[in-house]
């Protein structure tokens, strides 16, 4: 049933299947005919033609705005933003227009679309090509926010995102395009349901995107040391699986939230605050990037990283006292 696939292949396969099944699904972005920067679209223009896999000008605002217009008349666009940083060139279109189109017009229309934003640090790409801004979009009513961390999830969640009648902001992590894993095409994942990557008793570690992979490694390392960590990959930030996290922290009494994005104002604060309100007495710790910029030099870039070591160390400290 399951096939070996990389992370980049997984969402490409999901997109291909969706385009085969529904001819109103199409994609638009720069250089798509050559696969885009990371090969996410390789072969799709050959398969579906240049009208459904559209090479666009360097016009992020128009890519995003046009997708809304096209969604309003009944097509289902998949928007490629290339680097999540460039999506900032289309913020009015996403936040003031797409997120509000259904509500503002009293439910007369929907903006069913997927907005793909490759995210995160990727060796020495420096300040304008490395950001993780997923927390912004959780703050915008109307938007769904998805952050897959494995090939299987990138397959299943892409399918769910394309099928959704809402605008879905879809963050793929640039560092794991080549990550291999088993993908079962029949496996559906509901947006809003976390994956429990490891069951444990002593401490709950919540994360998403590539950091969830680091959290899982930290969990394994801690197990060797006799610390039993429950590792939760949220997979989506809006909606997010509060019930799973709450149940886990109710059991462990300790919460670590770890993410690659800047700690200040990051979604870790939302998770931590929610649990602080809901599970009085829980011990809470957040890990995220310092509030500085991502530099080019590798050693400086590394200063911004949340690592397996840091997660494990936080768990040791919390379970020690």
């Amino acid at each position, binding site marked *: 049933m399951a096939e070996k696939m990389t992370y980049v292949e997984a969402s490409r396969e999901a997109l291909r299947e969706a385009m085969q099944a529904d001819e109103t699904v199409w994609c638009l972005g720069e250089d798509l005919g050559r696969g885009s920067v990371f090969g996410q679209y390789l072969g799709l223009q050959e398969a579906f033609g240049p009208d459904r896999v559209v090479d666009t000008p360097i016009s992020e605002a128009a890519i995003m*705005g046009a997708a809304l*217009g096209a969604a*309003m008349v*009944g097509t289902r666009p998949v928007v490629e933003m290339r680097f999540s940083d460039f999506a900032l060139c289309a913020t009015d279109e996403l936040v003031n227009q797409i997120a509000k189109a259904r509500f503002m017009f*009293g*439910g007369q229309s929907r903006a069913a679309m997927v907005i793909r934003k490759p995210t995160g640090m990727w060796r020495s790409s420096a300040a304008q090509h490395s950001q993780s801004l997923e927390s912004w979009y959780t703050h915008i009513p109307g938007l769904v926010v998805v952050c897959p961390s494995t090939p299987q999830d990138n397959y299943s969640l892409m399918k769910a995102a394309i099928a959704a009648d809402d605008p879905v902001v879809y963050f793929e992590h640039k560092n794991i395009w080549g990550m291999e894993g088993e993908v079962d095409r029949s496996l559906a994942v509901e*947006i809003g349901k976390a994956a429990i990557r490891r069951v444990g008793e002593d401490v709950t570690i919540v994360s998403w995107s590539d950091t969830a992979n680091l959290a899982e490694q930290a969990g394994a390392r801690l197990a060797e040391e006799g610390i039993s960590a429950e590792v939760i990959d949220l997979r989506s930030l809006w909606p997010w699986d509060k019930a799973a996290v709450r149940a886990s922290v109710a059991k462990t009494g300790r919460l670590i939230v770890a993410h690659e994005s800047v700690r200040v104002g990051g979604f870790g604060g939302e998770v931590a605050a929610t649990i602080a309100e809901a599970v009085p007495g829980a011990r809470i710790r957040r890990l995220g990037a310092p509030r500085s910029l991502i530099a080019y030099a590798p050693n400086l870039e590394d200063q911004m990283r949340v690592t397996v070591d840091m997660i494990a160390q936080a768990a040791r400290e919390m379970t020690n006292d």
Partner: protein
Amino acid sequence: MSEPGDDGDNRARSIALLRMMERIRAFEEQAILAAERDRLVLGAIHPSIGQEACAAGIMQALRRDDILLATHRGHGHTLAKGADPLAMFRELLGRAGGCCGGKGGSMHIADFNVGMLGANGVVGANITIGAGAAHGLKLMGSDRIAVDIFGDGAVNRGPFLEGLNWAAVYALPVLFVCEDNQWSATTRTRTVTAGEGAGARAAAMGLPVTTVDGNNVEEVAAAADEMVARIRAGNGPEFLHAITYRQTGHTSFDKAAYRPEGEAERHKMEDDPIARQRAFLAGMGVRSAELETIHAEAQAEMAALLKEAAATPFPPDDTAFTDVQDIGSPAKEAF
């Protein structure tokens, strides 16, 4: 479109153009009263008084299933596209049964049933959205077209370039209309616009440009007919530059003291599109009694509808949480 020489048809059409302009004017006069006198409209409204020829002239060229996107100054376009004025008044008053359920108000007026996909509160934002609507129509093999109306101030925003280029690159069925009332809020647009302005910029992106006297509804309608026919036939996007004038302030609250003395008065006296169409019809032999009836009917219609709207209740409180999104809807959110 009417056949040449078909005088009865021409006359009927010219009367219909006047009637639509009178209805738009009456709608907005009532809306202003509702705002100023009755304090029933709480948000800002942007009247299009003096600009009715654009709405009336362009919309008559469209089919009901064609698409329209407009600006914050969109009452006229919406009404001319066929929206129900009662639902529009209710929207301006934030009431149940408003065309957006009271959620949008004047600045976001929309009626998807007649293809009106929304006024927009962000200057220029509708340009790329309209291009995209046309893109969607073309992808689906439809013969519908999109019309995208914006002001002279919008030509200085990036989406103007991105949206026009987009439409031209993909040869999309969209008519862009710059409804040039010469002012951007309190700023005279030409003082902040370099070069020859809207038309020159559109031409530089390869769009055929037609410039019209935007206060001559017959001229607007004739140009729109031709352009819409070409666009529907698949010849790609075109650009209509309609020169008009904003007779009121930017909003109904704005006294527009920044305008040179007499400028607005001169336009009202000499260049009002309704007065001009009345004169044109009088020249065609239409009797002034008939013209008065058209005027009076429009006034009566809108006054009655405003009253009816004002008697409507506010929307149910819980609609504040509906139509946000399906997945992670605030209506369902728990914890």
